[in-house]
């Protein structure tokens, strides 16, 4: 029987869900989003600012795709959900009835109630509107301060740098992003950031933002008491689920929308996926809220099956992720913590350029490999995933490293050097 499936949010999660539902069924699909009419790649916003691409280039599908695949798009704001009447309430006061509802509303930028955070020239970066605002806010300015050193913070630094704007980064941690990266890698990235003349201040926090008489930012004061003049402040201290509109709906929430392993909320026909979903019970080795591109996609694929065929539990494979810090690419497979656990051992190799490194984490008793961190080189996902699944030992991995090299042709390969380093280390210890 044909049902009406309504999806709130046209990000990677909502759109992947819609596409897969269409593949598997004939249901009526409506995707609602207040941000932009068409799906775009949030991860590519920075490239639009830097002039690598236009906005239309970061839309992964042509505009005609949606009609062709009978996916109805609604450029509207949802202000409430009534799960009992099975309707969503739109900002224009109209209501839309659903049989099944998928909440894929993503995140909003986190804020910490800093004095002055509402001054003109102070902003975060998440949405398309943020990008437009940033373009406006950074016209003809000379100096910017970025608060917070995560992945969005460094992207913002690169964006500003591309327009010759001076950047100071205030990072609470001892080393850049060392809540995730082990010290060596964090130092390497910190050094690289400084090569770009970014003034990276570690162990430094924002106290307040100061404005001028027109309500525009003119400086920030740090906890160490220093005042830094600037005309722009980027607040990049993380994101949190975008669920304010669900407050009175009766749908259970905590930090995010609470879901079980079927991605189902406490209400039978209401589901949540992507950045906004929070797992009630932790899946092994995963976080309760997974705020990355791939996981939104995978949850959406899973849910589409549940909605159209039989119920399927979310069962992600090995963790992986990637990023880029200015010119240094980063890939990770499996779990690499910033500090190795008691029962873990680490092999770390760094190239003398200070731009390439490989970390392999393994169990100290069985030598089974549990994670890879690689910088400035590319490893083959398929092979790393296979090694992790097959519980390969570190010796096996080192011996076959060549198989996993994914660098372009003619690139210098380092696997021999790495194997050499591995074996000489064994001898010395």
């Amino acid at each position, binding site marked *: 029987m044909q049902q009406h499936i309504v999806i709130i949010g046209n990000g990677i999660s909502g759109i992947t869900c819609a596409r897969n539902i269409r593949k598997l069924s004939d249901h009526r699909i409506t995707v609602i989003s207040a941000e932009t009419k068409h799906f775009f790649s949030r991860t590519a916003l920075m490239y639009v600012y*830097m002039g690598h691409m236009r906005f239309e280039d970061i839309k992964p599908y042509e505009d005609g795709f949606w009609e062709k695949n009978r996916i109805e798009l609604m450029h509207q704001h949802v202000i409430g959900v009534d799960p009992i009447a099975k309707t969503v309430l739109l900002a224009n006061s109209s209501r839309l009835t659903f049989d099944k509802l998928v909440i894929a509303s993503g995140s909003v930028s986190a804020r910490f109630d800093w004095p002055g955070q509402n001054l003109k020239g102070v902003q975060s970066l998440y949405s398309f509107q943020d990008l437009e605002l940033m373009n406006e806010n950074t016209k003809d300015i000379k100096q910017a301060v970025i608060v917070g050193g995560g992945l969005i913070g460094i992207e913002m630094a690169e964006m500003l740098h591309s327009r010759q704007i001076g950047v100071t980064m205030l990072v609470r941690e001892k080393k850049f992003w060392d809540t995730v990266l082990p010290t060596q890698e964090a130092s390497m990235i910190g050094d690289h950031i400084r090569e770009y003349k970014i003034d990276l201040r570690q162990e430094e926090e924002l106290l307040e933002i100061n404005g001028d008489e027109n309500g525009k930012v003119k400086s920030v004061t740090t906890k160490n008491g220093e005042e830094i003049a600037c005309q722009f402040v980027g607040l990049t201290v993380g994101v949190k689920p975008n669920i304010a509109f669900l407050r009175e709906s009766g749908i259970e929430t905590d930090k995010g929308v609470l879901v079980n392993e079927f991605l189902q909320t406490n209400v039978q026909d209401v589901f949540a996926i992507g950045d906004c979903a929070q797992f009630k019970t932790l899946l092994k080795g995963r976080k309760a809220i997974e705020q990355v591109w791939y996981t939104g996609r995978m949850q959406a694929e899973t849910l589409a099956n549940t909605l159209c065929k039989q119920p399927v539990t979310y069962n992600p494979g090995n963790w992986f992720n990637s990023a880029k810090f200015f010119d240094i690419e980063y890939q990770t497979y499996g779990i690499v913590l910033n500090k190795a656990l008691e029962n873990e051992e680490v092999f770390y190799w760094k190239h003398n350029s200070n731009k390439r490194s490989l970390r392999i984490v393994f169990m100290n008793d069985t030598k089974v490999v549990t994670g890879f961190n690689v910088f400035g080189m590319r490893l083959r996902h398929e092979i790393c995933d296979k090694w992790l699944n097959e519980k390969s030992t570190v010796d096996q991995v080192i011996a076959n490293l060549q198989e996993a090299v994914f660098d372009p042709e003619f690139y210098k390969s380092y696997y021999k050097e790495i194997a050499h380093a591995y074996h000489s280390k064994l001898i010395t210890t």
Partner: protein
Amino acid sequence: MDNTNPSLSISNPHPEHTDWMQKSGLVLVLSGLSVLFLAFIGIAKQAPLILFVLSFGMLLSGSVIYTIRTYLTVHEGVKNNHNFSRSLTSRGVLAWMLGILITLFYIIIYWYPQLLQNVISIMNPFSNLLRGRPADRWFLYGSLYTTAVLAMGFKALLKYRYSNYQRIRTSSVIFFQLAFSFLIPGLLQLFNQPEFYFSYFWPLKYDYLFPSTVHSLINHPGGMGVFMVFWGAAITFIATPILTYFFGKRWYCSWVCGCGGLANTAGDPFRQLSDKSIKAWKIERWSVYSVLVFIIITTILLWINSITNGSIFGELSQNFAKAYGFFIGAIFSGVIGVGFYPIMGTRVWCRFGCPMAAILGIQQKFFSRFRITTNGGQCISCGNCSTYCEMGIDVRSYAQKGQNIVRASCVGCGICATVCPRGVLKLENGSVQNRVSNQPILIGNNSVRLNEQL
């Protein structure tokens, strides 16, 4: 209510800083062009050598200075900042002006060469030295073309210096242009041999298998002409399929061919302008295979005519050849192919017109070890690969599904892999089996096994 105004919403109000050294480089390049213009209007005719040295010297040295200053002062890495906020590289006023200029130049050189008499004459000393004969318009054209490949090739070398693939490949196209398409044909003439381009083959250099060319080469005194006919035919019919089987069409289109060479050097700043739409892909398939059919029919007609001494087709086959030369050889590959670089992107000819690319492409699609592999689930659908694909391939549409890219039109330039911020793409030669992967699902999700088709 789509309040998002695409393309125009983001503009860069911070013009890039150009320092004194970059400016002097640019001034030198402009001076070089001005000297050519002075020659064009007939000033200082008496001193051709001086004009020649001044103009080409300033063009080359100016661009070298500019390039070194622009790229060696910054870190290695992707250099695409501001491409879409700069007039010249985003179809702005400057782009149109440049496009019109190049187009005019092509129109003049094909149909009004007498206008170029003065400029051609400054090439005489160099032409006499290299070829032992005075310059003509094609010598002028070849010199400018080679200069563009040299100067902009040097720029590409520095711009992409972080990629060994790009370094080696760019060196290769520069070498083939300079040696095989310029110096060797010149020297052949110096030694009274037929002018021959060892790096061009039928059907791109369509007349190399026309009976008239074959006859005149074979009848050329000495063995050289026979060797040339043999060389051309051997490459077209034997080496091409073998090399394409092992390496894909890139061995030619991105490593040897002069058209590809110009596109990947002088045209590099414009590669993002290629049309990625599905519609453009449809037009491409129609047009490129039509040109291929056209040249095959023309060649066959000419041979039948030659064998039967014109008794069957009379003038018909000659008219076919003339039409092909005019519409395809001159208008398509020259005027549109290069003149429209700043508007339609760099490989318009290679993509929509070149019959050589068409043949290599068919083979690449069905019988080759070449493919671009994607790295599991790492793609973030950012679109850099598609945007910078000069052949207008929507690389992202494959990458985000984890599918290998096996496309007839891919010239294997490798730029998609070079600009991808997540290390997702790799050009590879490997087993023909499973080359066209239709992976059920991206790596990482063990929940379901779907069939990605949509």
